[in-house]
């Protein structure tokens, strides 16, 4: 049995895997940032702001991520907004992830005892100082493991970007599959590549949980 095809595929697949990693990293950064804004809005004393964030979170969580991608890539053009496939995938996955991360952040902030906020307030801290110096550093310990779990899920979910032809691993796999007609070998190989990227991350999460939650 010859494995010559592996040599044919590998250069292309490795480049595509790099695309997957880039897409994951960018979508994660976007989701982490937007999610924080959403969580703060959700916890805001201004009821309108809180309701707006709540609405966003509920709507986005109730929609398939792939639909969000289709909306951004195919439907927004009718409003004159045209994004490339890669950018559309990053924005779509980021907007989708923001809703999840916002809920993770909110749970983390909610896990901090109210006495912590009061003690900080009695030192004369203003709202943002209480958050910055007392609440966030403690919430981070609670939030990091579920955030990292989300990162792993996101790494695999980038595969749906192949449906809008964004350059990443799954798209290349489908192309090669229709070229070589060896779906078993190809998809097992690509599956192994996803695993090779996800496994170090999940080991990292395990390590973090041990360190933080001792």
């Amino acid at each position: 049995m010859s494995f010559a095809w592996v040599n044919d595929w590998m250069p292309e697949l490795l480049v595509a895997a790099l695309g997957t990693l880039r897409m994951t990293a960018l979508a994660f950064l976007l989701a982490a940032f937007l999610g924080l804004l959403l969580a703060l809005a959700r916890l805001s004393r201004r009821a309108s702001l809180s309701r707006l964030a709540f609405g966003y979170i509920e709507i986005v969580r109730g929609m398939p991520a792939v639909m969000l991608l289709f909306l951004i890539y195919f439907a927004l053009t009718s409003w004159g907004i045209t994004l490339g496939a890669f950018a559309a995938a990053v924005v779509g996955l980021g907007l989708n992830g923001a809703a999840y991360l916002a809920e993770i952040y909110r749970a983390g902030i909610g896990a901090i005892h109210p006495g912590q906020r009061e003690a900080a307030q009695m030192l004369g801290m203003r709202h943002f100082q209480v958050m910055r110096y007392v609440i966030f550093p403690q919430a981070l310990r609670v939030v990091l493991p579920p955030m990292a779990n989300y990162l792993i899920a996101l790494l695999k979910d980038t595969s749906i970007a192949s449906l809008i032809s964004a350059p990443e691993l799954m798209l290349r796999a489908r192309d090669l599959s229709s070229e070589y007609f060896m779906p078993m070998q190809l998809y097992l190989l690509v599956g192994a590549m996803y695993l090779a990227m996800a496994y170090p991350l999940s080991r990292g999460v395990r390590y973090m949980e041990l360190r933080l939650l001792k």
Partner: protein
Amino acid sequence: MPDQTLVEVAGLSKRFGDVEVLKHVDLAVRAGEKLAVIGPSGSGKTTLLRCIAHLEKPSAGHVTIAGERVGSKLADGRVVEMSDREIARIRTGIGMVFQRFNLFPHLTALENILLGPLKVLRMPREQAEPIALGLLAKVGLAHKRDAYPERLSGGQQQRVAIARSLAMQPKLMLFDEATSALDPELVGEVLNVIRQLAREGMTMLIVTHEMQFAEDVADRIIVMDHGSIVDEGPPHELFRSPSHPRTQAFLRAVLERQAMATSSAA
């Protein structure tokens, strides 16, 4: 000016839903005075303290500290809410010690004390650190400067919490049942620190269940029951010859409980 009023509470009421926890309380505390607040649980002692710190918003009435209204102010003859910034500025002058300590668990003892001076008073570190170390020494914990709260006993945590409040150089200290969460053998070390502060002339409002301590340290004691101040006076009068029936009932209950605790311990 020893007779200057530092804290004034006027017509203060607070309700949580249908429950009226404070009923039109009036109270004045002079600068340098040590006032102990006693009374059965649920009588509104803690809520009174929390209203003074503006951790609770009064339903009616108001609190004035050093001539300035807390939480609301008069502008063009109307009462308006204070901003986050203004409330924070007033709170820098008030130290509060909580029943549950509330030390910041992610910071060492020294960092807990430094946080306020560095971030709120914007003191340079080389100026703040000697002050913080001095306060740690004052509460007898200089050797614990790098310990995290989880490594400290309850009594040690509470002493760090007191030092943390003092680092802001408050003109008023509020103690909310500062020893109630402590094991009996750790109560003394915390009370001693508070006694020391009293001797130095700090203005203090002390909510406590420690009657002996209240008698030792306070210039004046108020007795609360069902959201009102029912009795007040200098400690020796109040304890030796309580005139008000509710004070008598409360003190009798406390004595009984202490007697029971002593006999069950024996």
